[in-house]
């Protein structure tokens, strides 16, 4: 097992006129045995970062270490990692057993040990019943588990996952999320998990890296990221519905943005005066969209209330009070937390 250290890592695709800098100096320390999730919108460079750790992309600048070894110039096979791909990348012409045993055969592990390791992984993942099948004869969920099995049997120092759950339906995804958590508890292998899904990130991560356009916006536990977002980007990316970013709140100071989550706003008899613009009822909760009465443009305030609360009428005036300990202040120009 090993830690992973990223030291001012840069990545540029192409050169000259077509050069495209996609990772802008990411530094992070991932502890031994930790489960870290990289989350961010599509195209922000998550996969690129992961693939640099795997050795599938060259590192343009900076240093990546696994354990105490700088791996910049090592081949993927020398880095002692295993990777689960988004499309699983199972070898279509080999059955499940051969898929899982492929890496071990190359490493010249004796056949009886290969069998033992594959059997053990198959038992953990409950795929023992179809060891002789080809990948195309499996369902998506089964393929996903075979891909995980192929990673497990290698007993690597680091697991890398590139959106391994995105091809599963919602129910199976939730189930697999729990399985991955369990697996990590049992094996305790350092893991780097890429996803664009914030729910996946919040539930799986011990710590998470929030990326935006090649920049690491925040690196912290899900609680930290949720309770103390480091920037307006993080504030709106994590949490649904997103945090209100208000320039026109009565308390607002010039040059700052006040952030407050919809669930930390309550309808009260006093407070901010809003005109009810729209209502959305989502089962157990209701979203109220309000517009400032003091004529501050079209800035919307979203309020999340319980379904038990009285329903405000459209067009009526309501008063709203934020929880004083849940206010976030951001710099209006940099978007950074103040």
């Amino acid at each position, binding site marked *: 097992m090993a830690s992973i250290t990223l030291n001012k890592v840069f990545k540029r695709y192409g050169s000259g006129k077509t050069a495209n800098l996609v990772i802008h100096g990411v530094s992070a320390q991932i502890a031994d045995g930790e489960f870290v999730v990289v989350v961010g919108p599509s195209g922000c460079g998550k996969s690129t970062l992961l693939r640099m750790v*795997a*050795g*599938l992309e060259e590192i343009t600048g900076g240093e990546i270490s696994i354990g105490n070894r700088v791996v910049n110039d090592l*081949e*993927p*096979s020398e880095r002692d*990692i*295993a*990777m689960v*791909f*988004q*499309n699983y*990348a199972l*070898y*279509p*012409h080999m059955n499940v057993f051969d898929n899982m045993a*492929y*890496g071990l055969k*190359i*490493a010249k592990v004796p056949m009886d040990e290969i069998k033992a390791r594959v059997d053990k992984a198959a038992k953990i993942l409950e795929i023992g019943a179809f060891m002789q099948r*080809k990948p*195309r004869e499996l369902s998506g969920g089964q393929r996903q588990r075979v891909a995980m099995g*192929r990673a497990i049997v*290698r007993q690597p120092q680091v697991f890398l996952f590139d959106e391994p759950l995105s091809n599963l339906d919602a129910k199976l995804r939730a189930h697999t999320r729990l399985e991955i958590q369990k697996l990590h508890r049992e094996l305790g292998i350092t893991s780097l998990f890429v996803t664009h899904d914030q729910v996946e990130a919040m539930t799986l991560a011990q710590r998470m890296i929030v990326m935006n356009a090649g920049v690491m916006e925040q690196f912290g536990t899900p609680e930290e990221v949720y309770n103390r977002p480091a920037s307006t980007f993080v504030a709106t990316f994590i949490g649904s519905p997103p945090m209100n970013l208000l320039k026109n709140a009565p308390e607002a100071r010039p040059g700052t943005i006040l952030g407050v989550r919809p669930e930390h706003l309550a309808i009260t008899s006093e407070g901010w005066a809003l005109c009810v613009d729209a209502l959305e009822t989502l089962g157990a909760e209701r979203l109220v969209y309000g517009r400032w009465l003091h004529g501050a443009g079209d800035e919307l305030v979203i309020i999340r209330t319980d379904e038990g609360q009285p329903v405000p009428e459209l067009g009526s005036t309501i008063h709203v009070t934020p929880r004083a300990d849940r206010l976030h202040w951001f710099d209006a120009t940099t978007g950074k937390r103040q």
Partner: protein
Amino acid sequence: MEKRVRFKSSWLPWLLIAPQMAIVLVFFFWPAAQALRQSVMSQDPFGNNSEFVGLENFERLFADASYLESFKTTAFFSVLVAVCGLSIALLLAVMANRVLRGAGVYKTLLIWPYAVAPVVAGVLWLFMFASPMGVIAYWLRMLGLDWNHLLNSRHAMALIVVAAVWKQISYNFLFFLAGLQSIPKSLIEAAAIDGASPWRRFWTIVFPLLSPTTFFLLVINVVYSFFDTFGIVDATTKGGPGKETSILVYKVYYDGFKAMDMAGSAAQSVVLMCIVIALTVIQFRFVEKKVQY
């Protein structure tokens, strides 16, 4: 949405395929029927009389040592053409698949030979190998090899193999390249992470995944070397020296039009037709089953 075109009248579709059908009938079915008829007839050299002789022509054919010899020559030739053509094309395709800059030029250059007619290909190589002034013959002589395909049967065979392979490589190359490009990159990456060397990745992942393409090309190349190489042989060796490069198609022509044995030639055509039908059947059987994986 319905993709197929629906015709209101029933005769219009027939009219539209009529030119194609006419060509197939006149240039394929009619000669084929002629060959079938002639193969069971015996004719005098002037074509005045002919009589039905049943399978006698075929009996005569298979008792003929030179015919069996031609079979062997053809088999040897087509194995050489298929093996060399496929392996060189695969090598080129693998390299082209890795080229990043100038890939377009590289591919275009490799596709050109396909536009050259067989006879021209034959003549081209004949010139290069012609002793004493052909370029390659000259180089070979410098290397101490006295090239003479007019006397040396192995040289003659090598010449037609080279010309035939050169002409077919483009076709094989295109299919292999398409096959390579359809293999997901992540498979290769997964194998690299699993610790497989490039060589091993090729033989355990890429090559097996190319097997449907390889099989398809194998059949196509055998058909090609059996039937499409007449022009090359005729332009270079004319079946010589002796009958050493007289492959089956060439023998059909030679026996029919040079030796004026029409009946024997027709019987040979029928045998060739059976071979091509068999190959086509194999082809479709396996293509349908997609060959393994």
